[in-house]
């Protein structure tokens, strides 16, 4: 995974040096791909999108633990497709003309909603489940790609100021979790030195509770250390500003509630639905961001949005845009008809979307490959030359 192309070229530009890309860029790219996948039911296009995501992941992921999770998302996607098809076969109800095979029907009693298991299995049914499941699975795989490529710890550094406290708590949790293992070993060693046995209930009271008590003591020590370094302190915020942000958040939430109600109530006027929801959401988020802006915190070596970041994020957005455009131009090509079943086709626009989606495999700088660079991911230009 060390970028061999970079190592070979004598005139490396700074943009091509191995470094960790801003995690937000990977998330923008992945969400763009997921949006593109959500617009289509075309199995060919979906398979191409999965392939694009997989190629970028294999070329540009590091060797951190989260980078190895992509396989799990592929598996999860397969499970989603399988369940969708299975549900259609078991509970489908047998719509469609091209019957593949007839399974014996099992009518269930009335308390089970009067449903009927199995029965005739039609091609249309299975294909519908397959396309539907593929779309969901592709969106999952795109998110899995973001999980594998983006460093969650660096993403936590970039949370908005209003979520700073929660982000800190999560960082503490991520740092303390490995120490728990060490704590367990220490308690067990102490028990062995005292000659204690290992019966089950004793194990609980002898190991689990001391470890918990140790962790709680550790949290107090940590709080003292944080206090002495100025963590958890808030600046004095004027009452007027607090009232304004509070009013924005509350008004926004009222709007969100009204919007969701309007979205689900058939008799309400149209403006009470999605427009209201979006307006409320924007207002509330504006209030939250405003509250965060009043607290100034310096960041150690913040991740910056450089050209590769912008290009990678742009690729995702462009892929989503091209797919949306393609849906508007050729709706049939993107939602292949299942009755009668026809072979799905691709249009030039969709191929262009996939091509754009896969470009970050070469555009993004290769990840630093040395173990030291993974242990200290804040080193911007590490890696072998």
């Amino acid at each position, binding site marked *: 995974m060390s970028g061999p192309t970079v190592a070979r070229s004598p005139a490396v530009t700074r943009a091509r040096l191995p470094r960790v890309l801003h995690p937000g860029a990977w998330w923008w790219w992945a969400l763009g791909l997921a949006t593109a996948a959500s617009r289509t039911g075309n199995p060919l296009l979906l398979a191409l999108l999965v392939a694009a995501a997989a190629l970028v992941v294999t070329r540009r992921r590091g060797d951190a633990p989260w980078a*190895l*999770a992509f396989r*799990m*998302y592929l598996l999860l996607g397969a499970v*989603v497709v399988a*369940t*969708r098809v299975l*549900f*259609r076969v078991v*509970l489908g109800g047998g719509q469609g003309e091209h019957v593949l095979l007839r399974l014996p029907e099992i009518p269930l009693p009335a308390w*089970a*909603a009067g*449903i*009927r298991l199995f029965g005739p299995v039609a091609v249309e049914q299975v294909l519908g489940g397959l396309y539907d499941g593929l779309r969901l699975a592709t*969106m999952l795989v795109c*998110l899995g790609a*973001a999980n594998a490529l983006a460093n969650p710890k660096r993403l936590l550094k970039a949370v*908005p100021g209003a*979520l700073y406290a929660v982000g800190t*708590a*999560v*960082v*503490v*949790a*991520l*740092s303390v*979790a490995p*120490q*728990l293992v060490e704590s367990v070993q220490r308690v067990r060693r102490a028990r062995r030195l005292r000659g204690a046995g290992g019966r089950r209930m004793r194990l609980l009271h002898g190991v689990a*509770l001391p470890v918990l*008590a140790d*962790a*709680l003591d550790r*949290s*107090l*020590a*940590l*709080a*003292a*250390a*944080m*206090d*002495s370094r100025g*963590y*958890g*302190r*808030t600046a004095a915020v004027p009452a007027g500003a607090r009232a304004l942000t*509070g009013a924005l958040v*509350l008004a926004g*939430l009222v709007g*969100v*509630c009204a919007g*969701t109600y309007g*979205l*689900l109530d*058939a008799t309400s006027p149209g403006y009470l639905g999605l427009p209201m929801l979006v307006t409320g*959401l924007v207002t*509330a*988020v504006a209030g*939250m961001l405003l509250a965060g802006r009043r607290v100034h915190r310096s960041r150690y070596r913040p991740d910056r949005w450089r050209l590769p970041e912008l290009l990678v994020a742009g690729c995702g957005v462009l892929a989503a845009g091209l797919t949306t455009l393609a849906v508007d131009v050729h709706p049939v090509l993107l939602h292949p008809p299942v009755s009668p079943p026809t072979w799905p086709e691709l249009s030039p626009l969709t191929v262009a979307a996939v091509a754009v989606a896969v470009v970050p495999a070469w555009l993004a700088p290769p990840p630093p490959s040395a173990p030291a660079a993974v242990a200290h991911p804040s080193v911007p230009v590490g890696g072998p030359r």
Partner: protein
Amino acid sequence: MSRAGGAGVRGDRVSRADGAGVRRDRVSAVRVAPRTALVLILASLAAAVTFAWPLFTPVRPESTARTGEAPLIFLVLLPVLVALVLAELTSGGIDSKALAMLGVLAAVNAALRPLGAGTAGIETVFFLLVLAGRVFGPGFGFLLGSTSLFASALLTAGVGPWLPFQMLAASWIGLGAGLLPSRLRGRAETAVLAGYGLFAAYGYGLLMNLWFWPFGTGADTQLSYLPGAPLTENLHRFAVFTAVTSTFGWDTGRAVTTAVAIVVVGPAVLVALRRAARRAAFDAPVTFAAAPAGGPDPVRRPTVDGPGPGRRSAGFPPSTGA
């Protein structure tokens, strides 16, 4: 049980010692102001819809044309709502002791979670969440639910669209545990907590099923939600779906694990948590006082009013990885 009784006595002593004219039966590590409570209620209302929308979808021409998108709207809506509530809960400035306690307990929860992942239905997250919510109050319980599941998702790399829904459901569990009647101590407390654990575990499974229902079944099987159908019809379909897929396996396993864990280790864990809460002295106001002239320590440093002798003895480790 004698240990739990001891905790009760100590807890009462705390309440008498630090309550400056305030009745306080338990600590509240994260203060929930009236405005925060209002935000929490409004956001929870909207969030409940993001779980339960399949039960209420109208049959409307343009709406049915958009059925593919309705889930996506709610998938985008919920993370924003969770972020809003979390920001609001911490907006007043969260105590660094509460912050550290939150992080450490979330780490314990995140470490406990994989223990049960391999075995069907064994869920080891909720009992500590319930107990901590009970001891540290509803606001802390809410935050702990979110941070625990978020940290565990990051540790085992399971970030996906389901995460905000899991976070919110777990947060509601922690919040509810903090709202249980505070007078109970001893056996009655353990019994109530175990009962709540059972209820919470089944409720969590039900909420997760409700969320997964439209995604798991798709749009047109006999167990899918029916746009425009009466509520009872959709509820019936959902009941069958959840009974078939998970109630008798995963959910029951989760509920039994949680209740048994609360009964077996609950009293001892409550003692440990209450001891930590007492040492942290969350509600004690911090004041700065001049050091006595010629004293051994000329640096001004904060002292805590109330019972907090253990706080100073906590020490200052060089680096604890924050």
